[in-house]
């Protein structure tokens, strides 16, 4: 918006459709995926269902018994289908907000605000990209595979988790045509050295035009190092505690290295997807 050109007496701009909606979305399905993760599918308006991979919503979670979450909770997108009018989340129950979310029955309503923030950007010139995710970060990367396939870009997904049974999104990535390399803590395959060897092989094979990552500072640092060594671009989806979600309160800042200086950027407004090389892991 280049409103700088507007003189102080400029007529008011016509009210445009707002790109963010607040609505009481209908819970279509709400399933336990495994001991820790839940999959929530909601019927939403067209604005929400048009959310892009990497964007997020601010959810007003119901109060679980004995607790009173006050603020909205940011939740990254796991899937959005404009044709079906649906939005999906994959989440882990970790605090008062997600404990409340877990109580939502099918047929119930969830107050959601979004889509918010900037998502991943895929360059049509790329032939093959690598997505490296860990834990709940895998949920954020899932929709990227679908978008990449739609653009004819191949995806190799390195999915890191403590144990195979906690592996998320494996099916989602495979369904969208991604090559999946699952690594785990229990057998040592998720160690940074092992993942680095995997990434070097992909780079050498010309299958890594860009990195996409979410969910692990350690894996972020590894990819930053390789990106600098090979001159590759990358994007990282970051998390931070938030209040407003609209860039107003400056609660969710993180450090970034830009032009040799450390600067604060708001995860909700300037991100949550950032240039991987600027992020301070």
């Amino acid at each position, binding site marked *: *918006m280049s*409103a*700088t050109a*507007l003189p*102080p007496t*400029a007529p*008011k*701009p016509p*009210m445009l459709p*707002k*790109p*963010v*909606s*607040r*609505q*009481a*979305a*209908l819970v279509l399905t709400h399933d336990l995926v495994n001991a820790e993760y839940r999959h929530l599918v909601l*019927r*939403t*308006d067209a604005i929400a269902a048009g959310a892009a991979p990497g964007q997020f919503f601010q959810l*007003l979670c119901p*109060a679980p018994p004995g607790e*009173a*979450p*006050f*603020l*909205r909770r940011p939740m990254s997108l796991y899937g959005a289908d404009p044709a079906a009018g649906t939005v999906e989340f994959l989440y882990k129950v970790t605090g*008062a907000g997600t404990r409340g979310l877990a109580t939502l029955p099918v047929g119930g*309503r969830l*107050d959601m*605000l979004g889509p918010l923030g900037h998502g991943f950007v895929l360059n049509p010139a790329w032939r093959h990209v690598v997505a490296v995710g860990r834990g709940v970060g895998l949920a954020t990367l899932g929709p990227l595979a679908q978008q990449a396939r739609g653009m004819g870009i191949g995806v190799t997904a390195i999915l890191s988790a403590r144990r195979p049974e906690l592996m998320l999104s494996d099916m989602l990535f495979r369904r969208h045509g991604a090559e999946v390399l699952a690594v785990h803590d229990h057998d040592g395959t998720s160690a940074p050295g092992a993942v680095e060897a995997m990434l070097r092989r992909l780079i050498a094979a010309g299958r890594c035009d860009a990195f996409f990552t979410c969910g692990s500072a350690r894996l972020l640092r590894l990819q930053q190092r390789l990106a600098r060594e090979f001159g590759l671009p990358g994007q990282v989806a970051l998390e*931070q*505690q*938030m*209040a*407003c*979600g*609209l*860039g*107003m*309160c*400056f*609660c969710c*800042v993180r450090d970034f290295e830009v032009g040799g200086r450390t600067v*604060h950027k708001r995860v909700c*407004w300037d991100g949550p997807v950032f240039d991987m090389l600027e992020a301070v892991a």
Partner: protein
Amino acid sequence: MTPGATGTDMRVRVGGLDLANPVMPASGTFAEGLDRVVDLSRLGAIVTKTITRELREGNALPRVAEVRGGMLNAIGIPSKGVAHFLGTTLPLYRAWGVPLVVSISAPTAEGFASLAAEIGVAGVAAIEANISCPNIEEDGRAFAMRAGSTEAVVRRLRAATHLPLWVKLSPNTGEIAEVAQAAEAAGADALVVANTMLAMSIDLATFRPSLGNVMGGLSGPALKPIVLRQVYQCARAVRVAVIGCGGIASAADAAEYMLAGAAAVQVGTATFLDPHAMTGVIDGLDSFCAAHRIARVAELTGALRPAGGSHPATPAPRPADAPQPPAPESPTPESLTPESLTPESLTPEFPAPEFPAMKPPALEPNPA
């Protein structure tokens, strides 16, 4: 836009400004991001995040914590400085065609004065001096803690600007009426009462303070009864307009503040939960006035009746041309004479906040 949907005259005159309605954001809870959700041209005014002369990074993380019925923040006024404000923020914010109030802060009285002079450019309707910040000339005590330091800084500000001067007081003082009188005596055109209240919480998982700055400001519904009392005290002590600010989330909250003496209200934390909170308060005040047969929202200001008695404030419906009923025992504006509408009958329209969950009003479900 002036008459509300039900015909209420929503205009108010506050601290040298004519506003289309009495609702505006609290400083620090507004930025252009809200434009993605809300029609900002509906607001009575826009109040900027506090700007400072120097660049400020803000406080260490975490900057926010939840408490029952509210939140704590210790953001630390990150600021990109005056040049960024004049070059980028001001042109952008003018586009909504709403009076723009610029919140400023400085560590010294002279700093306040020079900043006020510098930002007094075309497009700025008023200055809001955030004097809750530490005064480095008084060992870091906030200016607004004492009447003497308040009077000194407001006097310097008054001499430095011809713009309407609003002074934002702190609730962290035991002498808020004296501070209010000092600000008025020094030339303030309006008082914003109040700011966040100094507070703290501890994370029992780590035994550490929840906030990186250890202490922070409490906002949200938990703050409302305290600041409502302070607005009442200030409004009785001064002649200039008082703008209520503390835990307002609904039209019912705003109406309480106006009855206590506020000429206008600022909505802050509620916008984080419901981006439509401010427009909801505007529409709700309009309906509230209509239900109470109040023609002008400004009539609510200071219309508090004496304690005691159970006489309802609103009279029974009557033909518009019927003779006025006899006045009640206390002096009451005629538009607030008794009627049969009981407080209970208003509850569906103005539900009490669901403490402790404090959810925004229910939404229209989207079509399933």
